[in-house]
C-alpha cells in the first residue's frame, strides 16, 4: 500500500459533533508522518477526544476526510479502519480483566489468519514490553495499571498498525508509571509506528512527542515541534497550565508562539 503521501494519517478539514448539538470540531486538520508522535493538547472541551473518535471511526465526521496511508477511509467503521492499519487504545483501563494476558494480546490479532505471522508478532511485542511475556499466563486484571496499559499497547500492536491512537495513556497512573508509559510510547514510535496522542498531562506528553498541536475551539490553534511549544512561555501560560520556572528565563516573555496553525 505504498502511496505518494508522506503522512500515515491525515485528518483533513474535519467537522464533527454529537447529535444536534453544536459542532465540536470546526475544520480541524492534523497530519501524522511515519515514526512520529503527534500530541494533541488543549483545554477541556477543545475536542481532543473527539478527534480520536473521528479518527478511529467511532464518530462519523460531518465533513472532511480521513486518510490512512493514502487510502481514504472516511465513513467506514472501526473494524474496517483496523484493516487499514489503524488501532485505537481507549481511554482508561481497557484490558479484558478476567482473561489472561495471552488471551488479551492474541485478541489483538483476531483478524490475522496466518499463525506464523501471529507468532512473530507475539515475539515482537513481548520483546517490546517484557512484562507482557513475564505475565503471559496471568489474568490481566491482576496486573497493575501501568502493566495493564502495556498489555493494551501490545494488543494494539498485534495487527502491525501503521497508526496508533492513544487516548489519555497516563490516566490514573502515578508519575513514575506515567514516565514508563511514555517511554513505551517512544519505543512504539522508534519501531516505526505513527502515534496520535491525546493527553491531559500536556507538558509530560510534549516531552515525549515530536510534534505538538494545541487545540482550542475545535481547530488546531498552534502546531509545531514539541520542544518549541514547550519552550514557549506564552503557550505555557495559556495552555500548558502555568510556566515552568526554568523556561521562563530562557524564552523571555515576548517570544512568539512557535508556528501559527492553518
Amino acid at each position, binding site marked *: 500500500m505504498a502511496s505518494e503521501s508522506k503522512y500515515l494519517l491525515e485528518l483533513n478539514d474535519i467537522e464533527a459533533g454529537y447529535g444536534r448539538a453544536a459542532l465540536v470540531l470546526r475544520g480541524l486538520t492534523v497530519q501524522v508522518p511515519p515514526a512520529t508522535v503527534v500530541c494533541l493538547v488543549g*483545554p*477541556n472541551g477543545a475536542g481532543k477526544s473527539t478527534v480520536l473518535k473521528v479518527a*478511529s471511526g*467511532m464518530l462519523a465526521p460531518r465533513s472532511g476526510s480521513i486518510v490512512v496511508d493514502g487510502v481514504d477511509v472516511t465513513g467506514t467503521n*472501526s*473494524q474496517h479502519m*483496523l*484493516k487499514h492499519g489503524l488501532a*485505537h487504545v*481507549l481511554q482508561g483501563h*481497557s484490558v*479484558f*480483566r*478476567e*482473561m*489472561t494476558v495471552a*488471551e488479551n494480546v*492474541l*485478541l*489483538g490479532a*483476531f*483478524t490475522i489468519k496466518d499463525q506464523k505471522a501471529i507468532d512473530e508478532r507475539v515475539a515482537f511485542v513481548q520483546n517490546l514490553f517484557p*512484562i507482557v511475556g*513475564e*505475565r503471559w*499466563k*496471568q*489474568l490481566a*486484571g*491482576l*496486573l*497493575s*495499571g501501568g*502493566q495493564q496499559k502495556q498489555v493494551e499497547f501490545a*494488543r494494539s500492536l498485534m495487527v502491525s498498525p501503521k497508526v496508533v491512537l492513544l487516548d489519555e495513556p497516563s490516566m490514573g497512573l502515578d*508519575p513514575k508509571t506515567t514516565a514508563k508509559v511514555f517511554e513505551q510510547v517512544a519505543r512504539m514510535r522508534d519501531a516505526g509506528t505513527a502515534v496520535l496522542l491525546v493527553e*491531559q*498531562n*500536556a*507538558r*509530560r506528553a510534549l516531552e515525549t512527542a515530536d510534534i505538538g498541536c494545541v487545540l482550542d475551539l475545535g481547530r488546531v490553534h498552534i502546531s509545531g515541534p514539541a520542544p518549541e511549544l514547550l519552550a514557549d512561555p506564552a503557550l505555557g*501560560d*495559556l*495552555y*500548558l*497550565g*502555568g*510556566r*515552568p*520556572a526554568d523556561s521562563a528565563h530562557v524564552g523571555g516573555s515576548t517570544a512568539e508562539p512557535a508556528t501559527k496553525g492553518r
Partner: protein
Amino acid sequence: MRNVSERTASAALGPAVTETVVVVPDTPRRSRWPRLVSLALVVIGAALVLSFPFVAPNPYILSAGVVILNYAVLSTGWNFMGGFTGYISLGHAAYFGLGAYGTGLIVKYLQLPGFVAWVLAALLVVAVSIPVGIAALRVRGASFVIVSIAFVLILLLVFQSWREFTGGSEGLIVPRPFPDLMRPEHHRVFFYLFAALLAAALVAWWIIDRSKFGTALKSIREDEDKARSLGVPTTRFKLIAYVLSALVTALGGGLYALWFGDLDPIFQFSILVGSYMVLMALLGGVRHLFGPLLGALVVGIALEYFKLEFGDTQFHLVAAGLLLGVVVLFMPDGVIPAVRALIDRFRPQQTSIRDVTAAELLEQNRAAATSEPRAGASSDHRAGAAPDPHADADNREVVR
C-alpha cells in the same frame, strides 16, 4: 515471577506497597491444577456416573439419576450461551419444550422412529433458534432476559391453546422407543443415553473453551464494544453460541420426551425449568466445564428431596428460591471457584503484583536516598505555580 506461583494475590504488604490489589478468585489455568490430577478426577467422575445404574438401590433412585443427568445436559447447554458470552437467558425452557414436543409430535404425526424424530426435532429447533436469536440478541443485559422470558411464555400459550395439534393441557403421549423393555431397564438405557449426550456436550464446550472462537466469546462477555473494535464479529459469534446452546437444550428435551413419554405444556415451557438451568450453572460456576454438571448434582438432588418431603405444598419452590439466594450472596462465582479459593488459602501466596518485592523496593529506596538526595524534587515536581485559567482538576498535574 520469582518464587511465587501464578495465583490470585490478596495481601498487601505493609505501607510500602500501596497499590490496590484486585482479587479475582477465578484463575482457571492449567498450571494450578496439574493435568494428571484433572484427568484422574474426570476418569473417577465418569466411572462413578457409569456405575450408578448398578448401585442404585431401586428404580426410583435410578429415575432420579436420569432426571439429574437431564438437568446437567440442559444446564451445560445453557452454559454455551450464558457461560461464554454472559447473556443470561431465563427462557431456555423454550428450547427444552420445543425439543420435547417436536420429538413427540413428529413421532405422533409422521410415524417416524423415536430417535429419527429426536434428530429431526433438534434440527427444527436450530431452524427456529436462528431468527429468534437474531431478534433477541439485538438487546443486551436485562432486556435480553425479558425477551427470553417472553419467548417461553408465548410458546406456553400456543402449546396450551392449540389443542387439536398439541393435545393442549391434556398432554401429549409419546410412544416409547423400546416398548419391550421393563421399567428399570428403560431407565437404565436412558441413563446411559443421557450420559452420552452430556459427554458430547461437555467435549464440545471444552473444545470451544480453548479455541479462538471461545476466546472471542469471552471477550464479548467482558466488553462487547471493545471486542467489536478488535475485529470480533460479535453479532455472528453470539448467534452461533445461541444456536449451539439451543441445540444441546433441545436434544436434552427430546431425549426427555422419549424417556418420560408424557408431555404437558405447563411443565415443558416453564419459567421454572429455565431458572433451574441458570441456578445450576451459577451454583457450579459458569466459567468452568463441569460447573453446570456440579450444580445439577447439587440442585437436582435438593429438588428431588424437597419434592419428596414437601411435594404436596409449594414449599419445594421456596426452598429452591432460598438456595438461589444463598448462591448469589455467598458464592457469586459458583462452587468451583469458591472451593479453589479455599484451597489456595493454604498454599504459598503471591504477596504483591508489583514488579519488585517489598525487600527489593526497600533496597532501591535506600540506594536512591544515599546517591541523590532530594532527586525527585529537582525536575518534575516543582511547586509554586501561578494560578492558571485552565488548571482544573484534570490537569492539575501540570501546574508547577
